[in-house]
């Protein structure tokens, strides 16, 4: 029997490990609790792998540096928390519009405003997803353990490159700053990919945003490359020329959404702790999914039939998987550490005819007892 390779790591360190594994070449950071550990790890590690990791003077610069580097062809990433994310929103919209891949790790803390820097929370679900004018779907993956931080970051890098779009790793203070034993032999990762590029033999004139069907991903050619890149955050046609509302421009804007949602099935990722006889479903994610797992363990000891779904791909919402998980149950509980049940508010329409109940906590972690008390009522 081989001895497992165990290391003590925080979730933040494992996000950095996941990014390095995925071939991240560029990181720009600005310190903010509880995300600073990612910044520090990338500054330490990336130059050893011939990548660039630099400090920026604010979060706006951090993300703009990343997107500039991405336009030059680098696989790029940054990390922040709520207040810094607020500053990045203009720039993340730009990345979405210009179809430049980037991964942003958002390590949630208690808000609003500067809130509680060292207080955990899962309160930025809607702020993160619906940050764009037009409410475009931004893929969001949420880890619940240090090992999943690695897995999910690798996955986020994969989809960012695959779809030419910003992708969020939505972690939280508890997972980010807590240390735990990580078995490096059992880490799971996605294939290492790179945005598809045009074949330069072609006689066709390169268009920065060209596609045939709305779900197609335009081929990427960097600034400084052989094809003239015409990048713009303004409404544009397939060639990148500024247009007001020409049919082609509207088509480009619709494509930005369709290219993501048409792959919702491929991106859908949940981890299910199943009981085939379940009459109750608990849905959770991030740190609270772990707590829910403990609660389910105890509930089963009491003879209850409970199914648990840990949602990793929060967005696009894995609708089919969630509906399937709710088959045969009469009650769906959604456990999350925020005031109003943010994720519940966007998934409850999937469960018509069933009782949907939120288990929420605010300013403190949800405990297994909180979940047991609700589910055994």
């Amino acid at each position: 029997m081989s001895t497992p390779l165990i290391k003590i790591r925080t979730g933040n360190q494992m996000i950095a490990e996941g990014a390095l594994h995925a071939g991240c070449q560029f990181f720009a950071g600005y310190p903010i609790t509880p995300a600073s550990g990612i910044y520090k790890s990338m500054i330490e590690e990336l130059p050893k792998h011939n990548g660039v990791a630099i400090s920026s003077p604010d979060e706006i610069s951090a993300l703009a540096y990343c997107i500039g580097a991405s336009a030059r062809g680098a696989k790029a990433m940054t990390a922040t928390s709520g207040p810094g994310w607020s500053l990045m929103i203009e720039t993340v919209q730009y990345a979405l519009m210009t179809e430049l891949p980037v991964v942003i790790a958002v390590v949630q803390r208690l808000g609003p405003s500067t809130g509680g820097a060292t207080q955990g929370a899962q309160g930025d679900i809607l702020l993160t997803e619906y940050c764009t004018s037009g409410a475009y779907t931004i893929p969001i993956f949420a880890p619940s353990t240090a090992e999943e931080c690695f897995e999910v970051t690798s996955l986020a890098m994969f989809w960012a490159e695959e779809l030419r779009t910003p992708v969020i790793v939505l972690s939280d203070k508890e997972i980010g700053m807590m240390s735990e034993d990580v078995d490096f032999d059992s880490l799971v990762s996605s294939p290492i990919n790179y945005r598809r590029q045009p074949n330069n033999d072609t006689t066709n004139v390169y268009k920065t945003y060209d596609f045939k069907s709305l779900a197609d991903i335009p081929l990427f050619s960097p600034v400084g490359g052989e094809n003239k890149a015409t990048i713009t955050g303004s409404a544009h046609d397939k060639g990148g020329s500024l247009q007001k509302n020409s049919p082609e421009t509207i088509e480009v804007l619709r494509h930005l959404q369709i290219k993501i949602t048409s792959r919702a099935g491929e991106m859908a990722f949940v981890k299910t702790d199943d009981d085939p006889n379940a009459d109750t479903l608990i849905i959770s994610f991030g740190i609270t999914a772990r707590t829910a797992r403990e609660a389910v363990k105890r509930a089963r000891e009491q003879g209850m039939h409970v199914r648990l779904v840990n949602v990793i791909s929060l967005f696009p919402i894995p609708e089919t998987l969630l509906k399937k998980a709710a088959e045969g149950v009469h009650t769906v509980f959604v456990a999350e550490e925020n005031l109003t049940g943010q994720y519940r508010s966007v998934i409850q329409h999937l469960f018509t005819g069933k009782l949907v109940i939120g288990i929420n906590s605010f300013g403190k972690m949800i405990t297994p007892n909180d979940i047991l008390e609700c589910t055994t009522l």
Partner: protein
Amino acid sequence: MTTVEPKTFLKDSVAFPFCKGCGHHHYVHNLDRALSSLQLDPKKVCIVSDIGCIGILDSLFISPHTFHTTHGRSTAFATGVELADGILNDSKLKTVVVIGDGGATIGLLHVVNAALMNVDVTVLVANNMLYGMTGGQNSGFSPLEFITPTTPEGNIVPPMDICAMIKSCGAEYVTSISATDKNLTTVIADAIAHPGFALVEIVELCTEFAIGKNKIDGKTIQTMADQHNAATLPTTFKRKEFCEEYKSKVLGRPLKIKNDALTQKYISSLRGSRRWVIAGTAGEKVQLSSYLLMRAGILCGLHATQKNDNPVTQGSGFSLSEVVLSADDIYYTGIDVPDVVIISSAEGLKEVTVNGTLSRSNNQTVIIMEDSLPEILTPAKMYRVPLRSLCTPQRATTSAVAAFIANELMIPLEAMIDSIQMHVGEKVALYEEDIKKILPLLS
């Protein structure tokens, strides 16, 4: 000898979208002539622009890469392009930032940081002293007494001198010039050719909004440019262009593999989990003691989590750690009822009181508390130990943890000693002495 005819980078026969008489006409033509005169491969030129009248010049260029960004942020995007180019690709791309005085106002920090870094980006500020695209509102560059729709009595805030500011960042190439100056092509070409950060302020007239209510003409503009050029260079920093500096000092740092992998060496008799809270004063190795405990648990094949807490400032006040050791996977990482609480100081006691650790303790909980602290009412099994005087404040929590382990025998003491020795080497003997002193007090 053959001469190469300078080739324009602009589209043929495209009408400029600027107002009649606007300085932007001069700006664009001279930028084009400068690029041509340098005989650059257009594939090695990237024009980064943003919002405002001058920002739409990207649509006029046919051959270089264009990168039209968000308002005022073009210098930051350009910095990212240049870092990836200069360090990761080494392709000598020339990155030119086209920005107005409005963009330079909102994005000033990006210009300042690019200048401080000395990244090879050329910033050409079209200063027409107002926001032309949105109706002529005053900008951070509007002169005193300047009349605009938003300063109807005349501007009462002095303008920033971008040249003086950027010179103070140690930029080597900074100059101000009128848009109608016959040397504009040469100045822009020199700025682009400069190996490092360069900034040219091109002072212009907005014919739509600046003239009429203001007494302003070519002479005024020349005076302004002269004044901005007169600023002396207050600071110089000896450094190379940023990418060169980074490549020589940071990149390719030796790949030192941190050999901190742990394999099981000891056997624990723990079933289920053991939840610890360790509280004391910042700077007294509280979090280290928790790390060593966690490591000891992992050496016994246990799963472990550790969470630390401290006030916003990291070096003062309380320091607290929560450690969970478990024979099974750890799902819930919080501590409802603590199994072991160690309190080494008044700050630690205050925190375990405030955060509810004490009120959540029950008669299964064991508390080891510094002897000099006041009595507390608790159902827990309480051991009062003069930790600070017996072990010194620095060793107090680690020795208390080790003594509890030695007393309880669920985890072999050797595992904890292994961890301590890994960290302090021969000084482990001091801890072994501490443990001997504490153990009799735990019975």
